[in-house]
């Protein structure tokens, strides 16, 4: 393993981890407001398809990216409707959303397989990309990755220092107390669901607009589920999401590079690495967790008032 290969691997880890990062941030946002959304996989797929079609039709990748976010929010809105209005169980609704999102994206997306779209190209940042080591790893990517660098700290600041961020967290921890204090609990939860949906849609759009410029049914290949697991690993803190996402991106990229280097390990075993790592990460988080880190009211619907 020469230094060159290691640097290339780390750069690949960043790129491979970016869709997971977007999705994880989205799920953190949703769960902080108290809504568990297991439909990440389905939302990512819809976002990816919407982004692909829009970019192809308009010729502008940016519109595609935005469309991905909007459509992600639309699908998340179904989850919001079923859980926030109709008091549906959040776990089951999220699962149903994954099934629906996967089905819809395959149904509508089948004609687009084998086509390509315009997308985002690599854009090395001036000055920053010249830094030895770090420049190659972090600053020779496409604009969406640079955007993701900003998102995590932005979310952290939002949740910690703004009035709305605190309101969102309050709603996720003690909705009754928040309501008594005059906060509009449902409104905040909707914001959590929709905001989360936008970010998850962005994560999906990244796959079809930057990671590749292609579409296929099932493009996200399980990344949505990894994002849900990562939220637990990050103790619901945006900052740690970066670490977790790149770790996973790295594992996925690593097993392929091991093969390229000529390992004799069977590929089936290597492919287990990301999933095994997810379990390991969860065990580690639970073992190290100081009490319960999750938002206290996560997954619990608020009954309508009489």
């Amino acid at each position: 393993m020469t230094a060159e290969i290691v640097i290339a691997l780390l750069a690949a880890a960043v790129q491979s981890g970016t869709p997971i990062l977007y999705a994880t941030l989205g799920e953190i946002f949703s769960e902080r407001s108290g809504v568990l959304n297991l439909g990440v996989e389905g939302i990512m797929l819809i976002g990816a398809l919407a982004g692909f079609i829009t970019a192809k039709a308009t010729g502008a990748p940016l519109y595609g990216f935005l469309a991905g976010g909007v459509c992600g929010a639309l699908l998340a809105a179904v989850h919001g409707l079923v859980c926030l209005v109709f008091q549906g169980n959040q776990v089951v609704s999220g699962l149903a959303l994954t099934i629906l999102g996967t089905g819809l994206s395959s149904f509508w997306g089948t004609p687009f397989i084998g086509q390509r779209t315009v997308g985002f190209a690599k854009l090395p940042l001036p000055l920053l990309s010249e830094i030895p080591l770090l420049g190659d790893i972090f600053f020779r990517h496409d604009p969406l990755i640079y955007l993701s660098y900003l998102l995590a700290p932005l979310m952290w600041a939002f949740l910690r220092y703004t009035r709305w961020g605190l309101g969102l967290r309050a709603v996720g921890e003690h909705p009754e107390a928040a309501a008594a204090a005059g906060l509009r609990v449902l409104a905040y939860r909707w914001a959590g669901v929709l905001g989360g949906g936008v970010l998850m849609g962005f994560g999906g759009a990244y796959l079809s607009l930057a990671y590749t410029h292609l579409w296929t049914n099932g493009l996200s290949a399980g990344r949505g589920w990894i994002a849900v697991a990562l939220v637990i690993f990050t103790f619901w803190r945006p900052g740690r999401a970066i670490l977790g996402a790149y770790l996973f991106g790295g594992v996925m990229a690593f097993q392929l590079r091991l093969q390229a280097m000529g390992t004799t390990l069977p590929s089936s075993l290597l492919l287990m690495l990301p999933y095994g790592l997810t379990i390991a990460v969860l065990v580690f988080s639970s073992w190290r967790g100081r009490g319960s880190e999750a938002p206290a009211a996560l997954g619990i619907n608020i009954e309508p008032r009489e």
Partner: protein
Amino acid sequence: MRVQVTKRQEPLGWGSCFIFLGALAFSLAVSAALLGLQGKPPATGIRLLFAGAFGSPWALEDCLLKAVPIFLCALGVAVAFRLQIWNLGAEGQFALGAIGASWVALSFPTLPGRYLLPLMFLAAALAGGLWGLIPAVLKLGLRVNEIIVTLMLNYIGILILEYKVYGAWKDPGSFGFPMTPEFPAAAIVGSIGATRLNWGLLVCLAAGAAIALFLDHTRLGYELKASGENIRAARYARLPYERLVLLVMALSGALAGWAGCLEASGSLHRLQPTIMVGYGYTAIVVAWLARLHPLKIAIAALLLAGLRVGVENLQLDLQVPAAFGQIMEGLILLTVLAGNFFKDYRLRWREAG
């Protein structure tokens, strides 16, 4: 004018049946609309769906064949759900069951059927049960969320299957394609008469009856139902929650394992990666729709099996993409979830003020 929402004091009884059917009708309508948007005739499409699923004796046969693994997996998942454990790992437990059964079939090819088949079922139950116990132990010991663990174990289980089938168990006569040799005749669950159904149906009946008996007439079954209602209260009442969790997950895994065993033995007569067609995930939908009653689970399993079979008809005659069935599954689940709202609450229009 505004809508007032009040919680119902008495449960809804027969009305809940109507709500369920209404939800189904709504999802059918939306699906039909989707067909229309794609330029396919919606009414014809829905008719083909039903005709393909239930419109002929062989279609019913196909539905029953598919319903068997779905039913067994759903039975296990439903039992876990009742204890508020989200066992999403039926798919992986199914795979492990198939692996266990295949190991027996390939390792003891000379045993007569009356020993070999029960041994296969035992191995399948052990393998699947083990796969179900892992998330249970992690949950009890380290409070690890079972949703993610069971899901990840699905992927890992399938990869283990592929590993064996591409490697040590590959049939030398299969021209390099990933499949085990065909099972010896003694290892194959036979067909019922001249139909294409196999005796797996009997296994379903037995399992369903056993679970029903267990839940309604044993003490442990009662404790399970009670614990599911309110875990904290159950613990306070000294109900053996930990033991129940382990039992339930092992049982869940064993049932899904039997489904895998039946598919490998009765359907495919060998083990190959294409045994995995998503029964485990459909089972989750079935389990949720049907709650804990084995009879309801059987009906729901038949319904969703019919959906899969009917969608093929749709493909053949109207060239509708294969993903249509998934859309319907998701829609049905979402609408039933939303519809449940009306079981617990009633709406009244009120004058403002």
